[in-house]
């Protein structure tokens, strides 16, 4: 859906070229192409729809101002995501009460409303997982979000966050490990709820 790789790369290169020369209509096309991906990345980094919307807007304005610095050696998508990730993290820094250090977050998969209906279980679990993602340290969260929602390769993530590929792997492994622990705890708790309901 968001993948510009499926679109004509030559068309994108032409749009970038025109945008670099100040053609805002061409830049508008690039915004349309990358909007879905950018909003998904910033939303999962911020966890707040309004903050994400503002951060996405900020990201595209920043990208326009920095367009002269873009080198076509790497994909435009990962370049924009890098700017978007930074805009999202900046937005979080401005948000009171948000922690961006590498400490353990307070999140838990037990942040859910009780409800035995099976149809809601997966949705509920996914929402709870989002709470756990938001509780991850910012550095690990950025890597996880760029991989899972931005669908960037390790090399693209490394370039986007300016970190070695090995660090991408270790942060990703840490983030997934943490979420899996929480997921297991959530499943144990769900099973206990069912047992209690049946008793």
């Amino acid at each position, binding site marked *: 859906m968001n993948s510009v790789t499926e679109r004509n790369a030559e068309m994108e290169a032409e749009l970038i070229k025109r945008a*670099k*020369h*100040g053609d*805002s209509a061409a*830049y*508008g096309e690039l*915004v*349309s192409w990358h*909007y*879905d991906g950018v*909003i*998904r990345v910033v*939303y*999962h980094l911020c966890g707040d*729809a309004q903050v*994400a*919307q503002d951060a*996405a*807007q900020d990201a*595209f*304005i920043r990208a*326009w*101002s*920095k*367009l*002269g*610095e873009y*080198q076509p050696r790497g994909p435009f998508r990962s370049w924009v995501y890098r700017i978007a990730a930074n805009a999202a993290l900046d937005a979080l820094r401005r948000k009171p009460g948000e922690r961006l250090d590498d400490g353990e977050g307070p999140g838990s998969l037990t942040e859910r409303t009780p409800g035995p209906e099976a149809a809601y279980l*997966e*949705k509920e*679990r*996914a*929402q709870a*997982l*989002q709470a756990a*993602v938001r509780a991850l340290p910012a550095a690990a969260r950025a890597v*996880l979000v760029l*991989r*899972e*929602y931005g669908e960037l*390769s*390790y090399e693209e993530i490394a370039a986007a966050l300016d970190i070695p590929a090995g660090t991408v*792997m*270790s942060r*990703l*492994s840490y983030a*997934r490990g943490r*979420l*899996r622990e929480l*997921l297991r705890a959530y499943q144990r708790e769900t099973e206990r709820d069912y047992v209690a309901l049946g008793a």
Partner: protein
Amino acid sequence: MSHLEHKLEAYLDGALDPRASQAVEAHLNICPACQAELDELRQLSHLLRAAPLPEFTPVRDFKSQVLLQLPRQQAAPQRHAASPMQLLPWLAPAAVVLGWIFAQVTLNLAALVSLAGQAGWLGHLAGWTASAPEQSLGMFAAQAALSGLLGAQGRSGLELLGSADLLVLELLSVLLIQAAAAALYWAALAFVWRGQAQNLDNVR
């Protein structure tokens, strides 16, 4: 912990080369624990991607909002270190002036030493200067060809030797003419460069 450690995640993410992928698949076929771990990772990825998204501004409206807020000026393209060929038009006049000064000073000094030797001012060293008349002649010729100091405006070398002020004045006048020529060249270059920059602005 998987027997494959990070390789299992790299396999899931499609980050392994074909050979490493085949090795992981071979291991998964014989290791239920690693297969279970892979299934868990897949489930996690599925759940993450299945998370519902809130309603966002439609792309058309978002695009309009962004375009309205774009600053008029973009950052200039990142400048890379200029290649020697790009710098050549700017450095050439400086190199010519420096070369000219070097040639003038060298030839004039040589000519002055030669004249001083002929005038007998160098005492027993006169023989050293007189021993190479061909070289002296060559220096005079080269110096004359470069519109140098001696002989300019009809003055003789001996006249100039007698007046240090006159010597400096003549030298400065020649250098000033050359520096002025270089400045004109640079001004022309700057004019052309400014014209190109304005054309780029107009495109924007």
